[in-house]
């Protein structure tokens, strides 16, 4: 299995036209114009491209290879035995990438295209640190600087993640900070939020001329992640398996889309299940409408399933699943019932994660543990029906830098 040489863009294969991003109606300025200023040129071009296939530049392919792509597709035999199922359970292991999650797939091309623009530094924000770590490493490898605004509560608690970014050479600033006007305006108001960190990052990018890198939700980010599903198609082919069910967790939707879109776009048989957290019930309570992708209301409105940009997520440990919306293409596919969705609470997911660690040895990221829970349920449901399914889920990341969270959930034994 080789690293694929093209990304897949689902836009021309959707069941309906994708509603475009729009400017907020009551403003004189254009938020779409803002994207022009902060994103690398090629990233915007690809965001609005209608090409089904986009060539991956050789340099990016080399970096993908260097960091361990293709990632393994593994069979979870011990888990199958443990739950005594007749189904086969496979998982794609994105935790095998050096920063521990799929995020690196999207950070590398964006850093690469920023450098192509002649830019010397990139900026982003991060919650628990998965995205920030990916950006730090990507920037380092293409030879540019990176600055990461990290939500202050995580900055204080997640010392190892913060240090990982610094080890890669990033400058990590706790947010709210005194570095930006927005940060100063809310400074002292406590532990910060992803929305505040994002506003600071965008303001700082505008001020310094650095490019801003996006971690999820934008179609182009989903496209960069398609490398996951394209590899899985090849890997399943090699072992002669055809999936009946594909499962992934959803924060903004990038790992789920990257994993499933190459299947959905080619009209592959099988069901697709998007799993969210019960504590952030966007699938069951969200509305499909135009909304801000960011709490700070800086970016253009996008049409998506959303709980509202002002939704305040409860403090669950799956930081990556706290997002209030779902990427526009994925929202549409759910609306059109091409993708089904369900929600699991953190307790159930953590139980599944524990079972996975006990059987397969891998500690899933808390985000990914939601997909594990769904895979186990699907296997059990197939047994109840008296059938056997081929179940494939995406393990978007490992949880080794989140053991403190597991410790809080289970207690320090």
């Amino acid at each position: 299995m080789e690293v694929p040489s093209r990304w897949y863009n689902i836009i021309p294969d959707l069941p309906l036209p994708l509603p475009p991003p729009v400017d907020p109606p009551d403003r004189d300025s254009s938020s779409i114009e803002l994207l022009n200023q902060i994103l690398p040129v090629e990233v915007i071009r690809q965001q609005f491209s209608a090409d089904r296939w986009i060539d991956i530049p050789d340099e990016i392919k080399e970096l993908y290879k260097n960091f361990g792509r293709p990632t393994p597709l593994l069979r979870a035999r011990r888990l199958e035995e443990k739950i005594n199922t007749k189904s086969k359970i496979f998982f794609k292991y994105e935790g095998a990438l050096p920063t521990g999650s799929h995020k690196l797939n999207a950070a590398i091309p964006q850093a690469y295209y920023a450098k192509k623009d002649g830019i010397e530094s990139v900026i982003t924000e991060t919650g628990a640190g998965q995205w920030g770590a990916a950006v730090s490493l990507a920037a380092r490898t293409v030879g540019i600087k990176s600055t990461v605004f990290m939500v202050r509560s995580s900055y204080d608690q997640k010392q190892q993640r913060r240090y990982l970014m610094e080890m890669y050479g990033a400058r990590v600033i706790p947010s709210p900070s005194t570095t930006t006007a927005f940060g100063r305006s809310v400074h002292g108001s406590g532990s910060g939020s992803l929305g505040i960190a994002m506003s600071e990052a965008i303001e700082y990018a505008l001020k310094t001329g650095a490019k801003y890198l996006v971690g999820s939700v934008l179609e182009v980010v989903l496209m960069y992640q398609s490398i996951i599903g394209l590899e899985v198609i090849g890997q399943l082919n090699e072992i002669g398996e055809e999936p009946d069910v594909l499962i992934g967790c959803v924060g903004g939707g990038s790992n789920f889309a990257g994993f499933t879109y190459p299947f959905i776009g080619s009209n592959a048989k099988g069901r697709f299940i998007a799993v969210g957290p019960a504590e952030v019930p966007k699938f069951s309570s969200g509305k499909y409408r135009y909304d801000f992708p960011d709490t700070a209301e800086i970016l253009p409105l996008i049409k998506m399933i959303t709980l509202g940009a002002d939704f305040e997520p409860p403090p669950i440990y799956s930081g990556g699943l706290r997002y209030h919306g779902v990427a526009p293409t994925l929202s549409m596919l759910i609306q059109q019932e091409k993708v089904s969705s369900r929600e699991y609470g953190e307790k159930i997911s953590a139980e599944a994660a524990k079972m996975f660690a006990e059987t397969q040895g891998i500690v899933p990221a808390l985000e990914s543990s939601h997909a594990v829970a769904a895979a186990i349920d699907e296997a059990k449901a197939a047994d109840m029906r008296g059938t056997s399914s081929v179940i494939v889920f995406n393990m978007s990341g490992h949880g080794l830098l989140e053991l403190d969270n597991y410790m809080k959930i289970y207690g320090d034994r």
Partner: protein
Amino acid sequence: MMAELVIYNTVGFPDPETFFKFVQGACSYVDALELGIPPKFAKYDGPTIRRSYVAVAGTDYMNLLSNVKCRAIALTYLDGLDLEKFLEMVRCTKAVMFPDLLIDHMNRLEEVTEAVKKMSLKNVIFISPSVPDTIIKSASRFADEFVYLGIRPATGVPTPVNVTKLVKRVRVIVDGKLIVGFGLKDNEEIAQAIEGGADGVAVGTSVMKVLEERGESEAIEAVRRLKEYVDSL
């Protein structure tokens, strides 16, 4: 075959008198005028056109439209629109276009195009790069005037796009006339649209800016030069 030129302006912009003089002068250079009627929500418009909607609010659109002597295409958005009243108001034009028809009101495609025809008007079908191949194919059959490909997500906001590529993709799907616009920013992009296989181009924001800042004679001159350029391709 010579490429066509379509010019966009908002009805009554920047004021009824200037608008009228501009239209009279520009008509002889264009194949059609696309005239925007302010919608409830200017979904896909950039700052210039959004401002123009505010500027013309309260104007007698019907009266202005009935004085336009060249081929006119009325344009507005369907969200919150009283379709019957709208068609009544624009019945002196030749055709109508709703940029959000396929995108947010796909289920009304037949109903809306039928209502348009009943008023003896023709349909321009608007598509954007995010419209999937299958729908471009099925929906373009409803275009008895032409298919309009909007190249950018918002008018007048020059996001980097590959114009030739985007047009080529649609060209192989659409059999009838294809006009490309929505944010073409300069002559180079006009040439790229034609190279991609467009039968014509539509220009809005750049001419409106001239009209707003330097008056109708310079705007008419800008249209004349555009015509000359398009003819030279």
